[in-house]
């Protein structure tokens, strides 16, 4: 059915997708936090390293400054002979020793610097020895001797060597500082890239989650709208239906009822909720579970139609109804959709129709009976012998009154056939015997028109299931048409043949045949062809009635092309094939009847 939402498999929410995306995002966040942690530690370490390198450099400068201070103090003592300078010298020297020892500890991990520090200490020791020597010279031999000693340049050479070592050590420290800074910068760039990458990946993840969320929401919205529209439409149909529709749960309880149902049964929908459906009509009489009583096995109803039910209205009245049942499988079991139709109007209409037909039949036929009777008596000379012209005129009036009677009979037959009210008494009959009697009954008419009747059939019985009287009516229609349309001294042949489990009755005349333009119209009401001069009129309903009668027998009737005259064929199923399994019984019954 159109409009029912179809839930495709990929529309189902998938937990794994959400888990994958959420896990990826969480991992991304953890990774980001980890990277930040590592980088923080690393950057702290690098900074400490740079600071230490810088501090070492300052300490190297301090060491060198101590040697400079010692040199300055020596010069001061040599020039002035003031012993206070010797105090400054000793303080500088002691500072050097402490600083050198501390640097020795610091440079334990830098063998190059350690080696240079050792050279520096040797040179400093030599320098201090030179200073001590010059100071002693000043004390013992005076200024000139000391100036001469200093001027020898030993002290300057040592100082220059110390400067050289100092420069090498400072260069090394600078190199270390530069190396640390460069690697930190490179790392910062790499980390920046990594962070951007992670942020982009997380943004993509967030976008994916957003998209998934949007898609889920929009799909559920779409389905909700669809379900809503579907519901509204179904409800409108449900409530607009003329039949009462009741939805019954597997236990026989009423779940829903439409407006027509409320009107039919006289209850408001809420008054019927969960009440047993037997309150409304005996849908499933007897004992046991509702669905069993209803004849519902494996989700299939044995008989989905129920006739001659009575609707019990709330006010105690009953209404004749018919029910049509449908099965609806829901997750909580098989539900029954019962559509109840109020047939009281139809029954009234059928009764009216039957009464009308009966009245028409009586009221039309009664005056015609009088008319035909009176004309017949006149023709018979009841009143007085009639002159020839009067006899002819009375004959015309009588023929036409008879025709009117036939027309009424045919119209009533058509009405009955089309309303399905015509009763057929089907029984096994020998079609040859039935057709032979139809031919015999037509002899009077044929003789009157000087037409020969010929009956052709095999010796074998042709058994069909049929209503003999109605089949004679069909044959009579065909034969009377053939006779009426035949020329004088013509022959009308009725033959019965059998082929492929079907019997065929054909009626062939030697008249002018039928204009192909009339075609199918032949079998419609009053669809008769042109009448040859002298042919008496028919009612124009014979072929229509014949077609309906033949159809009711499961056969068909048609006008066949023929080289000369008109040819009508009626095909009927043979009895032994007409009903599964009853062939022998049919033939046996027929033979028994024949013997009796």
């Amino acid at each position, binding site marked *: 059915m159109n409009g029912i939402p179809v839930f495709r498999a990929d529309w189902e929410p998938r937990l794994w997708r959400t888990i994958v995306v959420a896990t990826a995002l969480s991992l991304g966040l953890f990774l980001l936090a980890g990277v930040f942690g590592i980088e923080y530690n690393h950057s702290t370490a690098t900074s400490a390293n740079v600071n230490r390198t810088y501090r070492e450099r300052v300490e190297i400068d301090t060491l060198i400054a101590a040697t400079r201070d010692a040199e300055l103090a020596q010069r001061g003592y040599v020039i002035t002979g003031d012993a206070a300078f010797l105090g400054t010298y000793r303080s500088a020297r002691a500072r050097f020793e402490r600083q050198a020892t501390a640097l020795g500890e610091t440079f334990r991990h830098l063998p190059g610097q350690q080696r240079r520090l050792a050279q520096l200490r040797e040179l400093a020791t030599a320098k201090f020895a030179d200073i001590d020597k010059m100071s002693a010279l000043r004390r013992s031999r005076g200024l000139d001797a000391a100036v001469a000693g200093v001027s020898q340049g030993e002290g300057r050479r040592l100082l220059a060597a110390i400067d050289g070592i100092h420069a090498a050590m400072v260069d090394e420290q600078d190199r270390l500082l530069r190396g640390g800074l460069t690697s930190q910068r490179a790392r910062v760039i790499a980390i920046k890239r990594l962070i951007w990458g992670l942020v982009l990946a997380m943004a993509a993840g967030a976008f994916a989650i957003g998209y998934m969320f949007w898609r889920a929401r929009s799909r559920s919205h779409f389905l909700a709208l669809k379900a809503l529209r579907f519901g509204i439409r179904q409800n409108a149909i449900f409530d607009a239906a003329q039949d009462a529709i009741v939805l019954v749960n597997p236990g026989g309880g009423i779940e829903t009822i439409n407006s027509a149902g409320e009107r039919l049964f006289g209850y408001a929908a809420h008054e019927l909720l969960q009440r047993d459906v037997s309150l409304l009509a005996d849908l499933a009489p007897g004992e046991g579970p509702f669905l069993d009583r209803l004849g519902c096995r494996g989700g299939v109803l044995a008989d989905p139609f129920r006739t001659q039910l009575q609707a019990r209205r709330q006010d105690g009245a009953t209404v004749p109804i018919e029910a049509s049942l449908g099965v609806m499988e829901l997750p909580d079991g098989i539900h029954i959709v019962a559509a109840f139709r109020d047939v009281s109007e139809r029954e009234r209409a059928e009764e009216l129709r039957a009464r009308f037909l*009966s009245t028409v*039949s*009586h009221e039309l*036929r*009664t*005056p*015609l*009976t*009088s008319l*035909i*009777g*009176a004309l*017949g*008596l006149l*023709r*018979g000379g*009841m009143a007085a012998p009639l002159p020839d012209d009067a006899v002819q005129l009375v004959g015309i009036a009588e023929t036409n*009154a*008879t025709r009117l*009677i036939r027309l009424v009979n045919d119209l009533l037959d058509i009405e009955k056939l089309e309303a399905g009210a015509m*009763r057929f*008494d089907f029984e096994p009959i020998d079609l040859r015997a039935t057709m032979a009697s139809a031919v015999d009954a037509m002899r009077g008419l044929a003789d009157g028109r000087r037409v020969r009747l010929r009956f052709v059939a095999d010796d074998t019985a042709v058994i069909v299931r049929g209503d003999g*009287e109605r089949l004679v009516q069909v044959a009579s229609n065909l034969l009377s048409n053939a006779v009426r349309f035949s020329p004088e001294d013509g022959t009308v042949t009725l033959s019965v043949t059998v082929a492929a489990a079907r019997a065929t009755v054909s009626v062939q005349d030697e008249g002018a045949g039928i204009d192909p333009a009339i075609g199918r119209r032949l079998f419609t009401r009053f669809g008769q062809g042109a009448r040859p001069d002298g042919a008496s009129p028919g009612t124009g309903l014979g072929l229509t009635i014949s077609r309906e009668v033949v159809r009711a027998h499961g056969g068909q009737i048609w006008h066949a092309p023929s080289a000369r005259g008109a040819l009508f064929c009626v095909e009927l199923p043979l009895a032994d094939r007409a009903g599964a399994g009853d062939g022998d019984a049919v033939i046996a019954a027929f033979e028994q009847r024949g013997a009796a």
Partner: protein
Amino acid sequence: MKILYVDDEADIRTIVGMALRLDPRLDVKLAPSGTAALRLLDEGEWMPDLALIDMMMPGMSGSDLLSALRARGGLEALPVLFVTASAGEDDVRAYLRFGANGVITKPFDPLTLAETVRTRFAGMRG
């Protein structure tokens, strides 16, 4: 042979009367209703050998009259033919169930009606 014909239609009564009287051996009496027919029989001066009864009559219908006849002493076995325009197979079966001995269909040929009635009557007795 005495024949009682009951029909509410005066024209048809007249025609049937004329048609039957074409045969001088038939003694025909006509009644316009079931009640009139019963009254005639009650008089007891004239008892029919055969009754022809129209089926569809206002008031007492043909079948009502038949029941009334069958309920009377001395008339249980009176041969009765229904005269009717409704003579389909179903109808005929129903009439025979009511207890009629046969049916004559309207319209009939007035010139052969007497002959038909005599033949049917002979058939019933034979």
